[in-house]
């Protein structure tokens, strides 16, 4: 076995190797999907330190459960679901999951941590900050972690109609903000 060559292959093959105990194969999956998981957790509302801790926990949990990954979906979607569940568990435990219409300030973690000049990404992260916690959570779960409305409702322990209305309001705000980012910023600056 070549110990210096990084494992290659499709995610499903790497996951199968990881299920057989190959930690290097799993390490490659971490390398490929680590940033996506960290980004998702920040978009859900976690601060940088919490997001990174939860991302590590998600990958550790993923290694324990990797035999259950059969390749029906992508590995990225699978590990993101694990991460999102861990985040929801944490906020529920801390009783911070409040579905109100008010917009709560969220730490500008992404802008500080992320490098690169992908305008759309920065726009999205900025736009997500204008959403209430509930809207942000529901939109990020459904569009970032690929959850269905039903899955989100079940995990959040709220009616599916509430999830749908949070998603709809969130999408409306995002559409307005992403369509006219400068105008949105100006409006915010003037209070």
């Amino acid at each position, binding site marked *: 076995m070549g110990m210096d060559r990084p494992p290659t292959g499709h995610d499903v093959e790497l996951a199968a190797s990881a299920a057989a105990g190959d930690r290097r194969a799993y*390490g490659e999956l971490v*390398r490929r999907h680590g940033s996506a998981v960290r980004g998702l957790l920040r978009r859900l509302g976690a601060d940088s330190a919490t997001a990174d801790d939860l991302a*590590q926990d998600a990958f550790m949990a993923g290694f324990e459960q990797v035999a259950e990954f059969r390749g029906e979906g992508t590995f990225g979607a699978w590990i993101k679901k694990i991460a999102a569940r861990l985040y929801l568990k944490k906020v529920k435990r801390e009783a911070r999951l409040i579905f109100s219409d008010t917009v709560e300030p969220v730490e500008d973690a992404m802008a500080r941590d*992320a490098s690169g000049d992908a305008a759309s990404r920065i726009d999205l992260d900025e736009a997500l900050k204008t959403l209430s916690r509930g809207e942000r959570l529901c939109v*990020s779960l459904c569009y*970032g972690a690929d959850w269905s409305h039903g899955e989100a409702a079940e995990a959040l322990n709220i009616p599916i109609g509430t999830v749908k209305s949070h998603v709809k309001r969130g*999408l409306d705000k*995002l559409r307005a903000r992403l369509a006219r980012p400068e105008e949105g910023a100006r409006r915010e600056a003037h209070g």
Partner: protein
Amino acid sequence: MAEPDFEAQLTRMFAEAPSFPDASLFNAEVAAKLDRGWTMRRMFIGLAGTAAGLIAAFQILSSRFSSEVTQLSRNTGHNLQTELDAGYSKFNALFASPGSSEAVWLAACLAVVALAFAVTRMVEDF
């Protein structure tokens, strides 16, 4: 913009993974945690297997099982069926006696743990 178009655009935007300057550090931390967990697991299984083997050996020796087997082998000249019946009843007697049956079950459990350890080692070495 039509709703499906915007939703598709949003999905694409979410799919763009940000790049973190400390990505390699994050990967290294996860790898270290995996290694640590694996080592701890191997140590635990190894210790459990060793303890299991010692306890099992002690219990089996003290349960008179070996003397029963010796007795059976001495009488091989006798009628085979009679001996098999006698052996079967002695084997049952082993389980009937509370202390002995516990020893046998304990030994079986510990043997399973030891087997798991061996399998883990094989997977690791492979």
